[in-house]
């Protein structure tokens, strides 16, 4: 038993080889609020919020809040009575809690007292008093699709007008709605309305066997399939007391780093293109194609879906495969270094990148940002790297990961961090390939009834968190996947202020956030 921040809440360290997670419960909403204040004071952050219906297990409802802090993650559960499932609004302490709280209400009918009460995921496809994740919600109903009015915040002032964009955007991207308030070309305010990709993923998890859950979790955000699959596997393994082998962990890191590089390569190309440098797009897309093509050859899937599974990985690599990876890393590194020189020296590009879309370290902390977006604003937070009071999980602990940090916080910084992360991942992959231990790659995972677990993985955007709970039969009772985009989307609303509307695509692309990952 451990306590944190002098708060009277006892935590137990989750067993296993995953990222460090402590689990605890609070007796009531007041204690939760007090704990949140302490986390905030100690530079902690909100990592995820979800709810579950525990009435079948003889309880009411449960609210789960995951906090991130210097040494890892704290999962705090709060049981709520069945007849009055409410809790204190946390968005006054952590602004970023706003949308998570609204989604929790839409999905489970657990509500914050105070704070923004507008629906988030519920647009008009189902009634306000019906909650999909309640066990008595039933299957298969659908209601007339009533387009709902959404109360966007109004910006007054002479000469201000609104530009609504979406849900379908001009490019080949996911749907979402952006409402700009502008004076002339200056952006005064941006308000996002998401939820268009909501396809009932969390409900689909309920009752699945562990391997079915693995397939589903790998399709929450296709560009992060490896990160989700690993976070889920890690949660399941913690719940079911299974420790994957060193070889399996090494192979997981290989595919996760391949995913990181693939996304950075693609986005670096797109960023060039959005700044009117189509040469960058064709060059980086050529490299990305080479990259995913080898993934397809070695792993049988270009994005390596379903390769990380509970218990290990579904596919081993032989010596030739490892050699091919090393060889490609060397080639790609040379090419990307050459392209970096071109990007760095291209006056037109730098002119568009520098000082555009800035966010500062205060905002990063205020909104609980993680990942590349945090590091590009000078906040060194990387679950793969050692910090003073943090030990990264294997195999990263033994790799000496050097996180990329840039203080500037603008598009240029996010471009720089992506370049540096490509180089670092290439180095890590070569190290992994050279030191992969022998042994089996997949262990049996006997489901443990009524167990729970939390998995955290540093994906290419940031921290991917997956919470799982098994039912009495060892099937999935609840899975909550949390994308780092939850916290970064609100930061984008800040990043565009004072820039002009035509800069928006570039700023947006510099983060390239997931819609499906938050809409679920």
């Amino acid at each position, binding site marked *: 038993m451990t306590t944190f921040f002098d708060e009277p809440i006892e935590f137990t360290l989750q067993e296993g080889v995953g990222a460090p997670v402590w689990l605890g419960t609070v007796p009531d909403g007041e204690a939760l609020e007090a704990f949140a204040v302490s986390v905030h004071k100690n530079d902690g952050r909100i990592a995820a919020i979800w709810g579950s219906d525990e009435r079948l297990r003889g309880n009411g409802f449960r609210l789960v809040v995951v906090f991130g802090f210097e040494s890892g993650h704290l999962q705090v559960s709060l049981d709520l009575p069945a007849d009055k499932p409410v809790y204190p609004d946390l968005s006054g302490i952590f602004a970023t809690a706003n949308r998570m709280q609204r989604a929790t209400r839409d999905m489970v009918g657990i509500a914050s007292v105070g704070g923004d009460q507008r629906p988030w995921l519920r647009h008009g*496809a189902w009634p306000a008093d019906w909650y999909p994740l309640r066990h008595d919600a039933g299957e298969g109903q659908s209601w007339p699709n009533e387009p709902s009015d959404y109360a966007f915040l109004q910006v007054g002032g002479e000469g201000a007008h609104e530009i609504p964009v979406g849900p379908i955007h001009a490019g080949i991207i*996911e749907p979402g709605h952006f409402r700009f308030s502008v004076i002339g070309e200056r952006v005064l305010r941006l308000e996002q309305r998401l939820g268009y990709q909501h*396809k009932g993923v969390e409900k689909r998890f309920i009752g699945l066997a562990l391997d079915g859950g693995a397939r589903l979790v790998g399709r929450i955000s296709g560009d992060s399939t490896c990160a989700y699959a690993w976070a889920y596997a890690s949660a399941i393994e913690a719940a079911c007391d299974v420790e994957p082998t060193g070889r399996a962990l090494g192979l997981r890191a290989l595919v996760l780093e391949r995913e990181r590089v693939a996304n950075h390569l693609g986005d670096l190309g797109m960023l060039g293109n959005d700044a009117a440098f189509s040469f960058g797009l064709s060059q980086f897309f050529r490299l990305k194609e080479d990259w995913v093509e080898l993934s397809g050859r070695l792993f049988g899937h270009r994005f390596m879906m379903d390769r990380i599974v509970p218990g290990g990985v579904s596919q081993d690599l032989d010596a030739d495969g490892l050699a091919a990876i090393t060889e490609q890393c060397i080639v790609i590194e040379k090419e990307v270094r050459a392209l970096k020189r071109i990007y760095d020296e291209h006056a037109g590009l730098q002119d568009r990148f520098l000082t555009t879309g800035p966010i500062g370290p205060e905002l990063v902390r205020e909104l609980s940002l993680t990942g590349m977006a945090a590091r590009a604003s000078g906040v060194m937070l990387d679950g793969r790297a050692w910090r003073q009071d943090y030990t990264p999980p294997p195999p990263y602990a033994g790799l000496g990961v050097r996180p990329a940090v840039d203080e500037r916080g603008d598009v240029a910084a996010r471009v720089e961090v992506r370049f540096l992360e490509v180089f670092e991942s290439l180095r890590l992959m070569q190290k992994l390939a050279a030191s992969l231990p022998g042994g089996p790659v997949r262990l049996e995972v006997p489901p443990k009834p009524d167990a729970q677990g939390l998995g955290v993985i540093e994906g290419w955007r940031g921290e991917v968190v997956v919470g799982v709970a098994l039912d009495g039969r060892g099937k999935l009772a609840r899975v909550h996947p949390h994308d780092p985009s939850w916290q970064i989307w609100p930061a984008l609303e800040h990043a565009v202020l004072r820039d002009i509307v035509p800069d928006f695509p570039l700023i947006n692309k510099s983060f390239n956030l997931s819609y499906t990952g938050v809409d679920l």
Partner: protein
Amino acid sequence: MIPLLKRIIRTGIISRKLPAILADVPAAQAPQAGEHERLQDEILNILGRALTIREVDAGSCNGCELEVHALNNPYYNLEGRGIKFVASPRHADMLLVTGPVTRNMENALKVAYDCTPDPKLVVAVGDCGGGCGEVGPMFAENYASCGKVSNVIPVDVFVPGCPPTPAALMQGILAAIKGSKG
């Protein structure tokens, strides 16, 4: 500028020959030899100009979008073959639709379909979009999803895969054009 020029010269033209792309797909699906050479002509015959596509993500996991993007990489070079992605359905000959269609996107997709001038082609992309394979049923109709694309708008061609490879996507687009001709 010098490194830029050097790079352009060194990279040269790398657009893959169509036969090489089609060799990636199972023989049974591969079109007849020589067909690729007629692709551009065929498009011109049918449309008298380049084919324009409006991509609509109606609820995908964004995996399918990764492969649609790949169509414009220098290997597949779709734009170089007279097929262009456009921003508005009003300028599109074809809708390329991914996802299970979420109920939150149902209306937007119908509007995009209605805005696309006749005669229009619809290609549904991915196991989700077609409601088949192992993945399609995972995202079938529920309170939040209309399931496959053809549950919402008429579909001419469906491209299976999770996600379909760029080669399969090109084939699907070709099949839709040919189907509309015959």
